[in-house]
């Protein structure tokens, strides 16, 4: 416990505490939640020497304006984010992602926007001092689960920090962000519910990400997928990344805050290795799907993991 805290001067659009997620509760109606973009989350923690289980602040589009009202800390921002640091002398320093910064009492972090992406992450050395619920500090705002009464961060909230700044050095890493718009999928359990032409078109036509997209799901717009068997199935457990197709034939990708059970046929499932890439696509982006097999998906996941490990290993002290 440190008594250090941030004061929220502007909350941002959708700012929440998130970590790896809350598991083992889906059978009680509690979705896992957790960070949308795990890669950015893991790098954010590594840059301030935190354990990978530590919670961070996730923001979307416009982030918060935070004032360090008490104490000293070190922070890092990951994703593709435009931000600045305003120190107590009112000097403005433009911020760079993927590096850590020292922050002193009275300094402010102004997270202006995510660039060509949706989510960004703010980690602090030692983590945030908030009460976990069932082993996770992830906020599931839809069900008001988690710290801050399960609600998004709001203006004038106090955000307490666990520790005072200890580490003397700052660290940074360079890597390029993936830009491709092809998302790889595995066929879903009800793939054969769809007409022959729809099964083909699903892979050849582009789908536009609509504005009706949030932490729970991503509604797509494109060629109508024709269900020839049944548009309703018995409610069943939902898996993150499932692409379900309701009666109107427009696919919805179920994301991190998905309902725990649901009853629409699923044509496909996004592979784990492409999930972070997908959730960072802004509405209006056209994406297409490529079908691969399970072995390939598992191999790609291994590569995804080792790529992150490599980035984390490449983190260097700033001279």
């Amino acid at each position, binding site marked *: 416990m440190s008594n250090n805290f941030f004061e929220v001067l502007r909350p941002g659009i959708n700012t929440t505490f998130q970590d790896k*997620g809350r*598991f*083992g*509760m*889906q*059978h*009680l*109606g*509690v979705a*896992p939640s957790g960070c949308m973009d795990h890669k950015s989350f893991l790098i954010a923690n590594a840059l301030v020497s935190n354990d990978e289980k530590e919670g961070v602040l996730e923001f979307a589009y416009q982030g918060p304006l935070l004032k360090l009202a008490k104490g000293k800390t070190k922070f890092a921002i990951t994703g593709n984010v435009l931000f600045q640091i305003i120190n107590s002398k009112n000097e403005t320093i433009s911020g760079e992602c993927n590096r850590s910064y020292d922050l002193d009492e009275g300094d402010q972090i102004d997270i202006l926007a995510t660039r060509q992406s949706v989510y960004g992450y703010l980690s602090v050395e030692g983590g945030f001092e908030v009460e*976990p*619920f*069932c082993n996770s500090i992830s906020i599931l705002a839809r*069900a*008001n*689960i988690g710290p801050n009464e*399960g609600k998004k961060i709001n203006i004038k909230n106090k955000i307490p920090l666990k520790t005072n700044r200890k580490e003397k050095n700052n660290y940074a890493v360079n890597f390029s962000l993936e830009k491709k718009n092809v998302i790889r999928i*595995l066929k*879903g*359990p009800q793939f054969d519910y769809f007409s022959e032409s729809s099964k083909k078109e699903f892979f050849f036509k582009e789908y536009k990400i609509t504005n009706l997209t949030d932490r729970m799901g991503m509604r797509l717009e494109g060629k109508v997928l024709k269900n020839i068997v049944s548009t309703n199935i*018995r*409610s*069943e*457990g*939902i*898996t*993150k*990344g*499932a692409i379900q197709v309701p009666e109107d034939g427009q696919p919805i990708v179920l994301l991190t805050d998905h*309902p*725990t*059970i*649901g009853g629409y046929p*699923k044509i496909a*499932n*996004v*592979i*784990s290795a492409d999930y972070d890439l997908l959730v960072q696509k802004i509405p209006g982006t056209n994406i297409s799907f490529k079908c691969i097999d*399970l072995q390939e*998906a*598992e191999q790609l*996941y291994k590569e995804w*993991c080792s790529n992150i490990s490599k980035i984390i290993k490449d983190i260097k002290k700033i001279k």
Partner: protein
Amino acid sequence: MFKKLSNIGDCGIVCDFGNEVNQKINTEVIKLFYYVRQQTFNQNLEGILNCTPSYNKLIINFDLKKINATKILNFLKSIDFTKLKLSQNKKKWTIPICYDFAMDLENMSKVLKIDKDEIINIHSKTVFFIYMIGFVPGHPFMGDLDSKLFLNRLKTPRVKIPAGSVGIVEKFCNIYPYESPGGWNIIGKTPTKLFNKKDNNKPCLLSPGDTVRFKSISKKEFEDLGNEQ
């Protein structure tokens, strides 16, 4: 015993028990659910993140870093279903209900052509089996109601249903844990809290496979019980 096993994505398995929805099949699903959880707890099976039973399916989600679909499929195929038990986990609950809060009893009585007291009588005598919990935290889907009380969903769902409301549709009965929109026929309201967001050990009162009987209480008792919580 499941009829079909398949993967959903690269970190999920679907155990499909067939298309029927009845207590016998759902009991099989729940037995497997408890077995997988127990094996996870005993560390005989690693990397299981979530196990979600529904009417006729069990979905297992796992951490691809620790285990993969093939290993879980092999594990599932090796299970001797005759040895799976439910009894030790199954709890019997009595949940108070105040039928004075019914929003649709009048209409139910008209549509079903059954006296209101008789509807209440049938409902409170039914031993409900919890098929699954979900959609929102703590929300039970229970059955089976007497076919005399079978009703469709409301044509126009309500925008707001108070927390604790008990609804029926077809052979199913549910309890809304939170104020929410909904299309079920509301027969009463319980003061019992189904999900406690402050309880880290056992936040959810009910579990899949438990049974529930409703006990009729007066408005006064409802208020007294509500104040205790």
